[in-house]
C-alpha cells in the first residue's frame, strides 16, 4: 500500500515512487519485463561536422570546455578505469570550478578516495548532484553524513548504460581520459604511459552524450590502432601532461593471498563449482581481483586442467591469473571490461583471443544480447549478506557508503551459478546478518555462500543442494551461519539513521531496490 513515504518492494524495502524530481517503479524481481513504452534510444544532436584538413585538437582544458559550450546545470561524465591513479576528474572539475560554473551534475562510473576534492566543489555549490557507481573514502563518508541536498544515484555497470541509452541519465559532456589518442579522436586504453586496458566504461558516454572530450597525455599517428572509441564520436581532444599515476592505475603484479583461511575459502568455492553441473567443457566464468578471487581463478584452472576441461571464456575484471589460463589453453578467450595489472593490459594488446567489451555489451539488461547472460558461474564478494541471501556491496555495516555495485548485480542476475565468497566475520563485524543495511543485489539471484565457517545454498536451488550433497560437500543453513557469526561477535545494534535519503540504489533495470539514509552523528 503506497503511502507518502513509498511502497514496499519485492525485497521488502520501503522505497519512494517519486523523489528529487525522478519517478521510480519499485524493484519487482530479477527479470521482470519493463513496461511497454514508446521510447527510443537517445542520441546527440546532429550538426557537428569535421571538414577535410581539420582536426579536433585544442590546446587547453579551458578551451575544450568553452568549445563544447558547457553551461550551468549541465551533466558531465567520467570513467573510472584509472581507479586511484585518476587525475582527469579532479583536473576537469578544478577547471570547471575555476571558470565559475555552478549546479553541475557529475556522472562518474565510480569514485575513488583520490576524488576527495569533490567535497569542496560540493560545499561551494559547483556540484549539486552525483549519478554514479559509489564513492570511496572521504567522499562516501561525507555523503553518508548528509553533505548533499540531493540524493546520489547508485547504478551497476549495466544499469548505467541502460540509463544512458534511455535518457534517464542525460550526459551533456563526457570527459574521457584516454591513454592513447590521435588528432581526430580515435582512442584506446592499451598504449601510452597511463595505459589502463579497456575503455569499456566510457564507450556509452562517447556514443550517447551531446559532446565528447578526450583528455590524453599520449598521441600516435592517425588512426591509432586498436580503436576502442571511434573518431565518429569524439569532437574535442586536449593533450595534457599527465592523465593518471601508472603505479595506481594497475598493479605491477597482484599477490595471490597467502592467508590460509582465504585460500580455504577459495578452495571450497572451486569445490562447489566442480560439484555442480556447470563444470564441463565450454564453461564460462567470471572472477575478480581480490585476494580470494585470484586464488579461485588459480585453483579453478588447476581443477579444469586435471579433469581435462576447457572453458569457452573467462570474463572480468582481468588479471594475470586469468591470462595465464588463456595462455595455457585452459580457456579459449577472455572478455575484458577492466584490467587490473600490466600483464592483463599486455595480453589485451597482443592476443587475438583477448577482447575488450563495452559496459553495455557486458551487462545492459535492456539490449538485444548481454554477456553476463552467458555466464555459467560468477564468484563475487560482499560486505554483508542476510538470511534471504540479499547482498550489500555498497556500504559498511555501520551504514557508511563506500563501494560501487559495479558488475555485482548484473553478473549475479545473468550467471547460472552465483557464488559469494567471504569470511564469516571481519574483525568483530558479522558478515552474515538478519538484515543487510542496503540491498545491492537481491537474494533471488544469489545461489551459494562460501565462508571460512561453512557453505550455504539458497533454498530456492534444491537442484544445487542435491548436486553438492551427492559430492559430499558439507552444507549449513544460512541461519546456522548467522547464528555462528553472532555467537562469536555478539548481536550488533542496528546503526542509527536519520530520515533524509542520501542515496538511491537503482537495480539494473531502473527500478528502485533500496535507499540509503543519512547516518546519525556519532555518540
Amino acid at each position, binding site marked *: 500500500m503506497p503511502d507518502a513515504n513509498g511502497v514496499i518492494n519485492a525485497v521488502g524495502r520501503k522505497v519512494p515512487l517519486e523523489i528529487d524530481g525522478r519517478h521510480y517503479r519499485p524493484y519487482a524481481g530479477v527479470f521482470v519485463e519493463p513496461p511497454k513504452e514508446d521510447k527510443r534510444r537517445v542520441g546527440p544532436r546532429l550538426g557537428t561536422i569535421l571538414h577535410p584538413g581539420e582536426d579536433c585538437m585544442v590546446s587547453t582544458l579551458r578551451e575544450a570546455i568553452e568549445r563544447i559550450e558547457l553551461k550551468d546545470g549541465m551533466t558531465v561524465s567520467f570513467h573510472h578505469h584509472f581507479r586511484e591513479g585518476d587525475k582527469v576528474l579532479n583536473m576537469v572539475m578544478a577547471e570547471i570550478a575555476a571558470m565559475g560554473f555552478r549546479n553541475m551534475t557529475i556522472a562518474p562510473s565510480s569514485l575513488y578516495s583520490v576524488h576527495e576534492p569533490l567535497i569542496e566543489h560540493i560545499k561551494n555549490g559547483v556540484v549539486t548532484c552525483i549519478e554514479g557507481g559509489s564513492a570511496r573514502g572521504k567522499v562516501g563518508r561525507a555523503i553518508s553524513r548528509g553533505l548533499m541536498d540531493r540524493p546520489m544515484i547508485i547504478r551497476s555497470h549495466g544499469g548505467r548504460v541502460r540509463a544512458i541509452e534511455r535518457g534517464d541519465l542525460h550526459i551533456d559532456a563526457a570527459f574521457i581520459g584516454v591513454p592513447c589518442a590521435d588528432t581526430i579522436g580515435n582512442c584506446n586504453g592499451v598504449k601510452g604511459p597511463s595505459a589502463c586496458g579497456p575503455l569499456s566504461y566510457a564507450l556509452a558516454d562517447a556514443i550517447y552524450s551531446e559532446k565528447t572530450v578526450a583528455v590524453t597525455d599520449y598521441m600516435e599517428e592517425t588512426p591509432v590502432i586498436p580503436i576502442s572509441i571511434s573518431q565518429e564520436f569524439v569532437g574535442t581532444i586536449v593533450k595534457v601532461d599527465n592523465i593518471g599515476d601508472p603505479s595506481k592505475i594497475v598493479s605491477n603484479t597482484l599477490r595471490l593471498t597467502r*592467508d*590460509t*583461511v582465504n585460500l580455504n575459502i577459495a578452495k571450497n568455492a572451486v569445490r562447489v563449482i566442480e560439484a555442480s553441473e556447470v563444470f564441463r567443457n565450454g564453461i564460462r566464468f567470471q572472477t575478480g581481483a581480490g585476494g580470494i578471487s585470484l586464488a579461485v581463478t588459480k585453483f579453478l584452472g588447476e581443477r579444469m586442467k586435471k579433469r581435462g576441461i576447457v572453458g569457452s571464456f573467462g570474463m572480468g575484471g582481468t588479471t594475470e591469473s586469468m591470462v595465464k589460463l588463456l595462455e595455457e589453453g585452459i580457456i579459449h578467450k577472455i572478455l575484458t571490461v577492466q584490467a587490473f595489472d600490466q600483464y592483463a593490459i599486455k595480453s589485451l594488446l597482443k592476443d587475438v583471443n583477448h577482447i575488450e567489451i563495452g559496459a553495455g555489451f557486458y551487462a545492459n539488461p535492456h539490449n538485444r544480447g548481454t554477456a553476463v547472460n552467458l555466464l555459467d558461474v560468477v564468484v563475487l564478494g560482499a560486505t554483508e549478506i542476510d538470511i534471504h541471501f540479499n547482498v550489500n556491496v555498497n556500504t559498511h555495516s555501520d551504514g557508511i557508503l563506500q563501494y560501487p555495485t559495479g558488475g555485482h548485480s548484473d553478473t549475479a542476475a545473468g550467471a547460472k551459478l552465483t557464488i559469494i565468497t567471504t569470511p564469516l566475520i571481519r574483525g568483530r563485524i558479522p558478515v552474515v546478518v538478519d538484515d543487510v543495511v542496503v540491498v545491492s543485489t537481491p537474494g533471488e539471484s544469489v545461489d551459494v555462500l562460501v565462508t*571460512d565457517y561453512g557453505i550455504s545454498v539458497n533454498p530456492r536451488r534444491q537442484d544445487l543442494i542435491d548436486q553438492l550433497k551427492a559430492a559430499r560437500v558439507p552444507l549449513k543453513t544460512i541461519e546456522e551461519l548467522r547464528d555462528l557469526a553472532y*555467537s*562469536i561477535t555478539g548481536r550488533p545494534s542496528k546503526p542509527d539513521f536519520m530520515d533524509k535519503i542520501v542515496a538511491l540504489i537503482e537495480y539494473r533495470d531502473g527500478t528502485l531496490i533500496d535507499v540509503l539514509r543519512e547516518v546519525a552523528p556519532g555518540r
Partner: protein
Amino acid sequence: MARLRRSRIYLPGNRPRMIQKGPLLGADAVILDLEDSVSPEEKDAARFLVTHAIKALNFGETEVMVRINPLSACGLEDLAAVLPAGPDAIVVPKSENRQGVQIVEKAIIQSNLSKRVAILPLIESAKGILNAYEIACASPLVEAITFGGEDFTQDIGATRTREGREIFWGRSMLVIAAKAAGVQALDTVFSDFNDEEGLRNDTLAIKQMGFDGRAAIHPSQIAIIHEVFTPTEAEIQHAVNVIRAAEIARGKGSGVAVVKGKMIDKPIIQRAEKIIRIAERLDLPIPEPEA
C-alpha cells in the same frame, strides 16, 4: 586411540587476533602460548586473555593446548589461572625430569575438572632427551612427548641445518622413549616457511622415523604436514586388504596370510589397523577389500 596430533601451531597468547584465528587454521591442535611469544611484562595479560579465550571461543574439533611458562618461573601461576577454564592439554616447556610432570599432574588433579587434561612435556635440552623415557612414564596424563629442536640444538652447541643431521639422534631417542612408554612422539618445527619442498621432505623423513606429527611455524605449512601424515587412498586400500587377508588366514586356521607376495605378520596387521583408525577419524572413505 589417542587424539590425532598430526599438526600443532603456536598462537601468541597476548594477541587476540591471532588467538581468534585458531579455529580456522585447520590444525589438529593449537597451542595458546604463555611462554616465548609473551614478553615478561605481559605475562599476566596473556594469562587472562588465554583463560577467557578458552572459556568463550569455540575451537570445534581443534585440540586446545596451553604452553605454560617453566615451572621455575611463573608456570604454577599459569596453571592456577588456566586450568579452571578447561584446556585439553598443557605443554610443559624445558621438561628435564619426572618431577616437573608430577607437579603439573598434581595441579590438574587439584583443579578438580570433570574433563581430562593431557600433559605434553616439551623436551628441548640434552638432559631432557636423556631422561625422555622417565618423563614419558611420569604420569598417565602424559599422552605425547614433543621435541623442541631449536633450543635443543643450542643446548648441545650444534648448528641447525636444513637436513637436520644435528638433531637426528635427539629425534630418534625421543621416538624410542615415546613408543617404549606407549605415548605419541611429536616433532619440532621446520623453520623456513617459504621452503615447501624442504618441509615435505623433512616431514616425510620424520614420519618414517616414527613420529606421529610435528609443529607448524606458519599456517601455510599445515596442509603439507597433513598431506604427509594422512593415509593415501592406496595406503588405505592396502590396509583393508591386509586386514581381510589376516581374517581369512585366521578363519582357515592357516598360519600366515600373504598380500601382494609379502607375508603378513603381526606388526604389519597392527600398522594396517592404525591406518584404518586414522582414516576413520578423518572420515575418509574406506573401500572394500580387493579380491
